[in-house]
């Protein structure tokens, strides 16, 4: 063996030759350096202290992980540069380099915390998953999935601001100390709507210390809901118990949660949640939805009535009358005979299922609807223990609203205001409150937030907030289970303070804010505060506390039941029904930015709106017929740009929407407009939360404003509709007029075509017999596989047998073996369209798990988005629908790589970069790919994504940056890169990528299984040569591995598993039921991902029943 000594002279004793170097430092990113400087000495010091394992385990800077990750963004490997392995000085408990560590925590939210399991790699939280042990587990929605990116967001607030200018910590400390010392201070606190037991406890302490303190609660889009039925009383839905659901403008599956939603979807599957029963329509629930524009919930509905938001009251009133109650006085009688018929049948169905039905109202609808719905539910005996609805008492009580806050400020009752709400009142409070002016009246306003938004600038002080993954806290989930919020990592930036830490500072003797890690590695004071709160609930002692930290929640700690305030009279000033001259504007909650708080979250911005498929912006939505009546339809549809020969119909980058001028409440807004199918006539939907800041690159040349409020993601995004809105019209406003302007605005739509074009892609059946040739439920089920082209396509016969060579590559028996021959695992997936509502949860989860880059609006518009899951959404209109021909069915269909056993992509790759694995995966070897893109052409599902640019190295959000090549701005060591999953290669430009079935998870589970059985054998004391190893022991346990999309799905619509498990696994059973079909079966690709046809469960007595569940059934 020849040994060569390279590079290094012998190290003289007593002298080290190497200085501190890591990839991060090489790249010399300021963010990384700052983090390093701050974290490292502290971390080291803390590591020296063994006494507090609890706090120490989260603070380790995983040098190894971080530096490997930073070094790992290119795939090029030349002659080795010298690299270093930097181990810990003291090994932290539980951390195994290279293995993920999981913690139970939760994300505090207005409608109840989302329980989470958080994956951390060497101290970096990278991925969130639902905590399924939690009683209120309901998957994770896109917001929760994307929240981890906020932690690493480059635009995250990291400096203390005084009147919008950077200020020193000492100054702030002095201010806080002064407030803390002044017990007579007139302090106001504006909280968010989340329910935190520790915060509520501290609130009481603050009240005690500062008798003049006042407390308020504000979130822009929560409505009046929490005050109507009593202070802090709310109705929580238990969908498992509801056979019939009437959702009155209530998007409970999307942005307006009413309780854990997973059980709702379990009952959308006729074979039961895990496909273990015979299909039985009677076990399914039935959803009636009344809404203006399609929401995710409306898309799921069996019967959907489209009415303007203002008319929901009339419908509700009519339902109440049908049930023998008084309606709303002032509400007009229904005149449309179809609506009357619809209401009648609905009411009858609800009545016949009394005790098992529920009527839920959108939380932003006026109070009177909530009171009436509560009355209806009481009449139907739907409220109570063991009933579909339960009235509970939240702990957030005695909080004023923003209107009372304004009154108090105006009255001079507040000198100091702490703005702790996640909303942005200066931007999003109703326009008539003029909150900016109100805020200016307060002597000292201190805003805590993770973005430097309008309120942060308007307040005297802005304190950067610690992310919920960085701080100790607690929260209540939807039904009130006590749920812990634990930090995964120390705050990335100095001066980041959590809400509890700020409150504790006020309570402290010296008024000093102790943030993050305290002095001498003492834990944050919030830790003690949370422990104290918990001790009162779950008992003292380490054991209970450890259990809480392990499980993430305290079992049996639900909200107490409450008696909602009863109403007998229902008064309402009902506005006139909208007409084309007096339109209704609905200020919608946006699926990407919510109320505007996620404007700087690139994942959410790039995730298409589930209904409109618009990314990166908002746009006004209008029904086609209304558009025609207003004379703007042709403008919207005919987006032709005759100069661009390449794309004559204005698709892709050429799509420019016409802009309309909406005038309502005396204000106007210019906004691009899109056609929205199934929307109520004479309404305009405008999603809120956009238009927060502009710079010189704005497509419309709007005046640069508020540039410091957002980062690169949020700048120039969309149009701000908040100024149109006032307190009386917080949800919808009537009397709007619309004028077409001659401006056009480029919009980036992910999906341009809304119809299936007669192809039975996302299949649908109905549980009832509409007395046509399609027959009853059984017949329809049996014919699922024969819909569309598959009805007459001959069977696929292959000339070749998929076998290997007997001579060169024989199997164990010496004969030619099948090509896909792993006897242990054969992975497969099925996607249940009956449960899938088309939210973007899987899409964002996949992005988080698989290091999928964001590409920016221009690239999306061209059609270069990188999401491995494409959430197709089809509208299927029934031509003969006599009930409402303009109310099409909405069927979502997530499409990712379906891992065809006979994959067309593989055969065309000239370099063998994509081949099949023995366990049935269509593998993609990035490092072998040269980027001919032939595979993507030949993929019938168009599931492959190409890295047209170095999206990871060149920030796509800087204008033209991608096109500057080597001259463009690099972003190595960008803080966002810390989110990367170390087990997934970060792709460079020029390579193809696609869904891998989360192969990193599969490999990990398989290896874990092999390891585990060795441990077993050794424990048994046998020599290894006598160890019993069989297929059974090597095979991973049934359903023990979950892929990222499946894990995140709130609807359990995705099941994944091992085909060898047969009917033991949900996936195996799902493949055996009749609803199972292969997408594009006609081509004979034999995909491993199959789809389960959507089942609609219409009420045969409804006037529209025979048009339901027929999205594809009539296709030839």
């Amino acid at each position: 063996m020849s040994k060569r000594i390279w590079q290094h002279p012998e190290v003289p004793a007593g002298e080290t030759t190497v200085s501190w170097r890591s990839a991060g430092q090489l790249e010399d990113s300021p963010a990384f350096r700052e983090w390093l400087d701050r974290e490292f000495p502290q971390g080291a010091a803390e590591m020296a202290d063994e006494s507090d394992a609890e706090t120490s385990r989260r603070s380790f800077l995983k040098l190894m992980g971080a530096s490997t990750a930073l070094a790992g963004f290119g795939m090029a490997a030349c002659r080795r540069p010298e690299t270093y392995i930097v181990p810990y000085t003291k090994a932290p408990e539980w951390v195994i380099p290279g293995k993920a560590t999981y913690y139970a925590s939760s994300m505090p939210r207005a409608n109840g915390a989302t329980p989470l399991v958080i994956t951390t790699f060497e101290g970096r939280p990278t991925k969130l998953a639902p905590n399924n042990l939690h009683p209120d587990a309901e998957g994770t929605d896109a917001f929760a999935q994307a929240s981890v990116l906020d932690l690493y967001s480059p635009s995250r607030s990291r400096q203390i601001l005084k009147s919008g200018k950077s200020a020193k910590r000492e100054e702030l400390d002095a201010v806080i100390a002064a407030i803390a010392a002044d017990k007579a201070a007139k302090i106001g606190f504006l909280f968010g709507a989340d329910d935190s037991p520790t915060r509520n406890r501290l609130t009481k302490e603050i009240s005690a210390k500062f008798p003049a303190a006042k407390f308020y609660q504000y979130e822009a889009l929560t409505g009046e809901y929490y005050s109507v039925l009593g202070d802090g009383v709310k109705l929580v839905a238990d969908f498992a118990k509801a056979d019939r659901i009437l959702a009155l403008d209530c998007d409970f599956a999307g942005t307006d949660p009413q309780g854990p939603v997973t059980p709702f979807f379990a009952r959308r599957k006729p074979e039961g949640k895990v496909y273990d029963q015979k299909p039985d329509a009677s076990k399914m629930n039935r959803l009636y939805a009344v809404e203006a524009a399609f929401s995710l919930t409306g898309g799921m509905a069996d019967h959907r009535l489209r009415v303007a938001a203002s008319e929901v009251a009339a419908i509700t009133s009519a339902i109440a009358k049908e049930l023998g109650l008084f309606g709303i006085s002032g509400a007009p009688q229904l005149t449309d005979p179809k609506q009357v018929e619809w209401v009648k049948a609905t009411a009858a169905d609800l009545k016949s299922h009394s005790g098992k039905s529920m009527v839920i109202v959108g939380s932003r609808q006026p109070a009177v609807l909530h009171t009436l719905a509560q009355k209806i539910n009481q009449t139907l005996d739907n409220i109570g223990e063991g009933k579909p609805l339960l009235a509970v008492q939240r702990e957030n009580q005695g909080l004023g609203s923003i209107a009372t806050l304004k009154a108090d400020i105006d009255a001079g009752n507040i000198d100091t205001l702490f703005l702790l709400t996640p909303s942005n009142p200066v931007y999003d409070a109703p326009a008539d409150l003029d909150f900016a002016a109100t805020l200016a009246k307060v002597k000292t306003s201190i805003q805590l937030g993770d973005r430097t938004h309008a309120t942060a600038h308007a307040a005297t002080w802005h304190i950067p907030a610690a992310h919920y993954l960085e701080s100790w806290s607690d929260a209540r989930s939807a039904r009130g289970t006590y749920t812990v919020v634990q930090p995964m990592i120390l705050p990335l930036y100095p001066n980041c303070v959590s809400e509890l830490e700020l409150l504790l500072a006020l309570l402290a003797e010296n008024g000093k804010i102790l943030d993050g890690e305290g002095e001498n590695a003492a834990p944050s004071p919030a830790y003690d505060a949370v422990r104290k709160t918990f001790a009162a609930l779950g008992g003292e002692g380490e054991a209970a506390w450890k259990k809480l930290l392990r499980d993430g929640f305290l079992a049996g700690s639900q909200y107490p039941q409450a008696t909602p305030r009863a109403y007998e009279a229902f008064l309402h000033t009902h506005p006139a029904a909208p007409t084309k001259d007096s339109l209704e504007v609905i200020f919608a909650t946006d699926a990407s930015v919510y109320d505007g708080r996620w404007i700087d979250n690139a994942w959410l911005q790039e995730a298409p709106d589930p209904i409109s498929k618009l990314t990166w912006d908002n746009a006004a939505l209008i029904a086609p017929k209304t558009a025609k009546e207003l004379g703007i339809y042709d403008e919207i549809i005919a987006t032709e740009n005759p100069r661009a020969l390449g794309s004559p119909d204005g698709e892709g980058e050429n799509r420019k929407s016409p802009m309309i001028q909406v005038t309502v409440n005396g204000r106007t807004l210019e906004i691009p407009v899109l056609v929205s199918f199934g929307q109520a006539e004479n309404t305009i939907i405008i999603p809120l939360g956009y238009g927060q800041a502009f710079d010189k690159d704005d497509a419309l040349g709007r005046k640069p404003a508020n540039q410091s409020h957002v980062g690169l993601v949020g700048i120039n995004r969309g149009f701000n509709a908040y100024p149109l809105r006032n307190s009386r019209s917080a949800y919808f406003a009537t009397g709007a007029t619309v004028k077409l302007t001659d401006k056009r605005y480029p919009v980036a739509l992910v999906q341009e075509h809304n119809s299936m074009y007669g192809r039975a892609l996302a299949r649908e059946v109905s549980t009832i017999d509409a007395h046509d040739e399609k027959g009853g439920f059984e017949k329809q089920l049996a014919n699922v596989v024969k819909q569309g082209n598959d009805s007459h396509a001959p069977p696929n016969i292959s000339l070749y047998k998929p076998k290997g060579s007997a001579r060169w590559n024989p199997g164990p028996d010496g004969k030619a073996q099948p090509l896909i021959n792993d006897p242990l695992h054969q992975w497969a997936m099925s996607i249940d369209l009956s449960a899938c509502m088309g939210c973007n949860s899987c899409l964002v989860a996949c992005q988080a798990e698989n290091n999928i880059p964001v590409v920016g609006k221009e690239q999306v518009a061209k059609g270069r988005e990188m999401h491995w899951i494409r959430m197709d959404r089809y509208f299927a209109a029934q031509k003969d629908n006599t009930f409402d021909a303009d109310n099409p069915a909405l069927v979502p269909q997530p499409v990712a790589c379906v891992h065809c056993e006979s994959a067309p992509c593989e055969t065309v790759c000239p370099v063998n970069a994509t081949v099949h694995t023995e366990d049935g995966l269509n593998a993609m070897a990035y490092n072998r790919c040269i980027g001919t893109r032939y595979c993507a052409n030949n993929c019938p599902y168009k599931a492959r994504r190409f890295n047209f640019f170095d999206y990871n190295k060149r920030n796509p959000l800087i204008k033209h940056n991608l096109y500057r090549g080597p001259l463009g701005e690099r972003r190595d060591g960008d803080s966002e890169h810390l989110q990367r999953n170390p087990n997934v290669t970060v792709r460079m430009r020029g390579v193809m990528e696609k869904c891998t079935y989360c192969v990193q998870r599969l490999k990990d589970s398989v290896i874990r299984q092999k390891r585990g059985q060795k441990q077993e054998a050794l424990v048994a004391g046998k020599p290894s040569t006598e160890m019993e190893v069989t297929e059974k022991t090597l095979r991973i346990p049934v359903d023990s591995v979950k892929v990222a999309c499946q894990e995140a799905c709130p609807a359990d619509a995705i099941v994944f598993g091992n085909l060898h498990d047969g009917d033991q696994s949900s996936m195996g059973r799902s493949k055996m039921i009749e609803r199972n079909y292969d997408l594009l079966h006609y081509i004979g690709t034999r995909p491993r991902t199959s789809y389960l046809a959507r089942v609609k469960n219409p009420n045969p007595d409804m006037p529209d029943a025979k048009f339901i569940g027929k999205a594809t059934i009539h296709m030839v």
Partner: protein
Amino acid sequence: MSTTRKRVYGYLAEFKSASALYKAAEKVRDAGFRKWDCYSPYPIHGLDGAMGLKRSILPWFVFFGGMTGTATAFALAYSTQVVIYPTVVQAKPANIFTIPAFFPVMFELTILFSGFTVLFGLLALIQLPRLNHPLFASRQFHRATDDGFFIAIEARDPKFSPNQTKELLAEIGGANIELVEEED
């Protein structure tokens, strides 16, 4: 004639036309010469017969060259796709039944190898490139690529004799008969 001693290459005689050349060639052939050649600006049909040349052996070279190409392609494809590292590609067999997929490459390599054989075989047979040749020193030979028709009989030929050969050339219609010498 120069005064330096030079080896004689042979006689070069010009002929009026292709047909004259043809007739002359037959006579030179019949006179039993071996080392001689006809030079013309373009190939003249039948001159091979008139000179007594055999059909070119090149096709045989090319046949074997082409077969080598076929075999190379097959060996390359079969060994890599079936023997060394079979991959699972669109459920296509990785055994003898994969061969149809190899045909295009086998065909192309057959042609490629044949093409190279033609090129190098030809160069070998006609012994080119040879940049220096005594004939190039002739004052009239440049017309052989324009409109001249020549016969050159080499001195190396056993039948060559300085006088009789010259006479023969003159007799069969050769004009501008020139003694070509080798340089240096």
